[in-house]
């Protein structure tokens, strides 16, 4: 996936001189996960800019630059560190278009990795996207495949408003084709990963793969689960979820983030309203339990949602 991100950044830099990158060790070192490798050599240190360890100023500078004619793509090394950049993101970037009466947007992108599986511990593994989805003025996307990572990042950079691209760390190493001339993926559009008629599993990011694994497990039992990859979390594709639900009448929402007050809550809540008449069983969510992300391998493995838990949820809603 890292190569797909790299390509998206390289093409955006090549196509539009207003695009710049900034972040910690993204330049000379090519980024902590290699997503920006070679870009500084190619586009120069002015446009691919190493910053000090100053998340608040990085984000604030991105806002100022975006208001002054650039399209900055900022990287925050771990999503856990957006805690340090929330003012610029929430009080400035997200609000500028609205509170300035529509004068101008803030075309910035924040790339930041979330998720566990690497024993990176409680301060380097969090999935905090639900916070950002709650903020009017921000958009949030989360790719599950290299091709989506490419296309969603291109859409994010092209977008006139601030977009947070949440990348799942554990997927960085994932291999996958990106076509030579990829189709654009509009922000806000989900995709059916696997069709099915018995239940709908809505997921995003790494959970998409657990959901498809769960669907395989279930298929062996004769249960045909449809898997939907949200791709975008804000806005999210309510119509697609509703459409699927109206065929399957059962819904499970899965993500790596903490279940309570997570993204799944919104999907479930909307469907408990707009989709109520379609529901033949309870809406189930699969997410992380209500603790910080633990460090030890055994703890983290027990903590993280997986295909088995998703399959169990599908069985329960079919009960």
């Amino acid at each position, binding site marked *: 996936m890292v190569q797909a991100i790299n390509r998206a950044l390289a093409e955006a830099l090549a196509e539009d001189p207003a695009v710049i990158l900034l972040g910690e060790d993204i330049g000379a070192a090519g980024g902590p996960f290699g997503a920006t490798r070679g870009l500084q050599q190619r586009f120069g240190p002015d446009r691919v800019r190493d910053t*000090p360890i100053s998340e*608040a100023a990085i984000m604030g500078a991105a806002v100022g630059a975006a208001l002054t004619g650039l399209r900055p793509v900022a990287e925050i090394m771990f999503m856990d560190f957006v805690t340090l950049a929330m003012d610029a993101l929430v009080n*400035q970037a997200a609000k500028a278009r609205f509170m300035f009466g529509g004068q101008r947007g803030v075309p910035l992108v924040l790339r930041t990795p979330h998720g566990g599986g690497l024993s990176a511990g409680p301060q380097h593994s969090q999935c905090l996207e639900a916070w950002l989805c709650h903020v009017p*003025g921000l958009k949030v996307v989360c790719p599950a495949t290299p091709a989506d990572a490419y296309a969603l990042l291109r859409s994010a950079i092209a977008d006139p408003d601030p977009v947070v691209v949440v990348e799942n760390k554990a997927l960085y190493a994932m291999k996958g084709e990106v076509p030579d001339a990829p189709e654009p993926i509009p922000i806000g559009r989900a995709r059916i990963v696997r069709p099915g008629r018995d239940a709908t599993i809505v997921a995003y990011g790494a959970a998409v793969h657990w959901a498809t694994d769960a669907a395989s497990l279930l298929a062996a039992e004769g249960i045909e689960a449809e898997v939907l990859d949200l791709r975008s979390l804000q806005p999210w594709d309510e119509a697609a979820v509703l459409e699927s639900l109206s065929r399957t009448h059962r819904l499970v929402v899965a993500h790596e983030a903490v279940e309570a007050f997570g993204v799944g809550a919104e999907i479930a809540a909307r469907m408990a309203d707009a989709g109520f008449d379609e529901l033949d069983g309870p809406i189930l969510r699969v997410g992380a339990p209500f603790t910080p992300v633990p460090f030890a391998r055994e703890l983290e493995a027990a903590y993280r949602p997986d295909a088995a838990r998703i399959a169990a949820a599908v069985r329960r809603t079919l009960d």
Partner: protein
Amino acid sequence: MTRMADPLALLRTMLLIREAEMALARLFADGEVPGFIHLSVGQEAVAAGVCSALGPQDSVASTHRGHGHAIARGVALDGFFAEVLGRASGVCGGRGGSMHVADLNRGMLGANGIVGAGAPIALGAALAHRIRGTGGVAVAFFGDGALAEGALHESLNLAAIWRLPLLLVCENNGWAEFSRSDTQVAATLSAWSAAYGVPHAEVDGNDAAAVAAAAAEAVEALRRGEGPRVLEARTHRWRGHFEGDPQRYRDAEDAARAAGHDPIARSRAALLAAGVAESALHAAEAEARDAVAAAIAGARAAPAAEWADARHGAYAPAES
């Protein structure tokens, strides 16, 4: 050579700010201004002087006490008053109000309700000017209390490392809300700037001509690519932190002392001494009064902001 600001133009700007803010004080007392407003009465010379050194391509990030900056930057009074009064014709459609007056086409990146937040925004604007090669510079105004925010430190460091055309202007009025700022900030601004290798200049913030000269010098250095500067203007907050502030924490003496340093009186006296006719000054005063009165009348007559226009305003309209 440093461009000389026109002293009469400086006075005009200050008069406009003063008239506008004193009118707002009255409107606020009468309940016509929603929310809360922070007036810069007594500090007009800083806004007028600094902005006199800027061109149309430059960027300004302001503070919660930002009326003066907006007016000095040339934001139209009509849109300004309509905004602060929450009318549809406000420069921000009545969605932002006093603490968010912005006019992006004039490089006015907005007043800001978050103390310290303007500095990183101006830093980014300076970066954009550099990368885009506009020749522009960015200014962040901030208060003496704001120096306690980490954002100031991060911004100065980044500007210094990157040698960006950023001018940080401290309006040092001695107060941070209801506290003396010297009880809140241990660093002097000069030592703080020096620690980052950034030149610092101090100027009498009640002397518009002095502020203008200092700002012009700093801005020229920025345009020459010499890296960031800090300009500290000592001035006085005449009124409460916000309108309606009973100022129990402040003795009458302090307020009186403040009023003894009227930048407008000073500028007026200097102009008279320089041979400008009193009638010219009266004309300028009348002009300011009339402009403010007209803007208020316009704002009052303007329709209220409408939710139907605002409700989809968080994002760009979808292309179709």
